[in-house]
């Protein structure tokens, strides 16, 4: 197990280096530097431009800039935004809970509905339900997020008026952030002061539902398909026949002897979806004006806010890598053959 951990850890360093190089390079490949973008259409005095670039350390040769960047990173310094002058880490920690809340809600939706649909489709293989689930999930998988988000807004928000169009909470409420999770904060606030904050929790929930569904759609489709095919494979295994020959109930055969083994590949897929989820969050947050990491990064790219882009993406990438790492470990725990491998 230790060796297994070590092997997994040893690939992380090159991965991190790769991420820093990519973000550093890509953001500088976009035409226009931070000063030019800030000034916009107004004419810019070349001398002032040069002075500003010098102040920001952006006049140095690229290798030197990259070296400075890495040195700062090694000291745990993520720098500060060129625009707001706030530290990147502080901005990240302020905005991250919003993204985490959205991603968590999306993942819970995707896992619960995906597993359920996949398991039932596998048990009732060839039935109308099975064909329905597979057809819908194929559609869901190939659905462009932007378009799907707009369709849902048009129908549920504009036509039916059931859900709000954007944001996390109605402006009428003034909720002090405690956990950063609006669902929890609004619930706490409503309990503390029921008259001033009446209906805050339900309002937060209404704001969350559509973005969570939009963001969860692709993972849901992937999880449902994976669960189904994995279940079908395990159902054919000899040990499932053994379980049935023991006279166990169908529920025991499905949940104890089939699902447990079928979940192992599904778990990996769920882990990989975390990356997809972060990518999807960028779009979803933009559609729903959700004040999270995705919207933060998009704005930073538009402003050529180099430190925010470089370090923001690095932090997000680290998160994804850590999650995948944890999934790897869980995979080992769920599968005794790997856990015991020398």
């Amino acid at each position, binding site marked *: 197990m230790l060796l297994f951990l070590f092997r997994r850890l040893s690939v992380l360093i090159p991965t991190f280096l790769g991420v820093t190089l990519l973000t550093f390079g890509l953001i500088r490949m976009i035409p226009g530097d931070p000063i030019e973008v800030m000034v916009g259409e107004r004419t810019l005095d070349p001398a002032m431009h040069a002075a500003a670039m010098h102040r920001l350390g952006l006049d140095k040769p690229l290798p030197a800039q990259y070296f400075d960047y890495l040195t700062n990173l090694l000291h745990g310094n993520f720098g500060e935004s060129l625009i707001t002058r706030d530290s990147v880490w502080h901005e990240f920690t302020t905005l991250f809970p919003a993204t985490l809340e959205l991603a968590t809600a999306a993942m819970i939706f995707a896992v619960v509905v995906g597993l359920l649909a996949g398991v039932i489709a596998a048990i009732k293989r060839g039935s109308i339900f099975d064909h329905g689930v597979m057809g819908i999930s194929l559609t869901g998988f190939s659905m462009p997020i932007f378009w799907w988000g707009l369709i849902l807004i048009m129908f549920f928000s504009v036509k039916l008026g059931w859900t709000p169009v954007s944001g996390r909470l109605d402006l009428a409420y003034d909720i002090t952030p405690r956990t950063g999770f609006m669902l929890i904060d609004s619930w706490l606030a409503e309990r503390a002061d029921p008259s001033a904050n009446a209906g805050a929790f339900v309002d937060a929930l209404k704001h969350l539902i559509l973005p969570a569904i939009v963001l969860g759609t692709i993972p849901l489709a992937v999880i449902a398909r994976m669960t189904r095919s994995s279940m079908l494979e395990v159902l054919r295994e*000899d040990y499932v026949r053994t379980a049935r*020959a*023991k*006279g*166990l109930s169908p529920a025991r055969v499905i949940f104890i002897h089939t699902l447990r083994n079928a979940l192992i590949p599904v778990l990996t897929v769920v882990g990989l979806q975390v990356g997809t989820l972060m990518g999807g969050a960028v779009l979803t947050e933009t559609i729903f004006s959700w004040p999270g990491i995705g919207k933060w990064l998009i704005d930073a790219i538009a402003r050529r806010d180099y430190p925010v882009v470089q370090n923001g993406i690095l932090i997000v990438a680290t998160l994804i890598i850590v999650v995948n790492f944890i999934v790897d470990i869980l995979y080992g725990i769920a599968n*005794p*053959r790997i856990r015991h491998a020398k």
Partner: protein
Amino acid sequence: MSLLTIKNLSVAFGNPANPFRAVENMDLTVNQGEIVGIVGESGSGKSVTMMALMGLIDAPGRVTADELSFDGKNLLKLSARERRKIVGKDIAMIFQDPMTSLNPSYTVGYQIMEVLKVHQGLRGAKLKQRALELMEMVEIPAAKSRLDAYPHQLSGGMSQRVVIAMAIACNPKLLIADEPTTALDVTIQAQIMDLLVNLQKSQNMALIMITHDLAVVAEMADRVAVMYAGQVAELGRVPELFRQPAHPYTEALLASIPEHSKGAERLSTLPGIVPGQYDRPSGCLLSPRCPYVQERCRAERPQLTPSANGSVRCHFPLIAQPVEIRDRKVAQ
């Protein structure tokens, strides 16, 4: 009264308009404490028959029978839930490949105790005690430490012992062993066979031993059913049937024993293979391969009829005919 009675059992797969009968008009009885061998080449329907008895044939497979009764109970009339109270408890089954028959995610102890919990409601220390006892009965060394082992940590022979322990956990009246040693090393095969025969005696179980190795049956069974293409070709008591086979197929199987023990898959004495879904003849199922085939064999399917040593499904049983006539037929 016999422990198990199967009358006119058929199992059909595939399209209802044009079904494939993997098992057809199967008759078999097994008495208390008796060993019955079922032999026949691969694909003759041995496993499917037993799966039907265990209630493990899933739709779209269809099981029909005039009678399927066990220990005085009509299995066809029982609900699925009532049937599960018998399956795994009074009728238990072990399978061909022990390495894939155990769930890789659970310990050996868990999988043995599961049967005891479900069928006998044992809990706690008693449960563990009984599991250990069973592992000792199947001669697993260091049983206590093996309780927490995962299947991948066991050898094939050890795994099959675990499977046997699960099967005999509730003192079944009937144990079905479906080619229990085919997947094992030759040295281990004899050990497992001995274990099964010893358990059969000590537990006074009936044992159905499925194998395509006639030598094993000759040694241990009281009676044998020879199956071919989903039907019983011949049925009878063991020493007599082997001394004087009435069915040409039994004769061919017997003649192939020497090569078979050397590991040959095909019957050298009978060229060809068991007809499958698309190539079943309309007459006697053996007619394309039978060395004694006649016009009538190609035209008409024989019924199972009483013979000198049991019953046989053949228009021209070997022992009912003088030897000279048989030889002349071959020459034609």
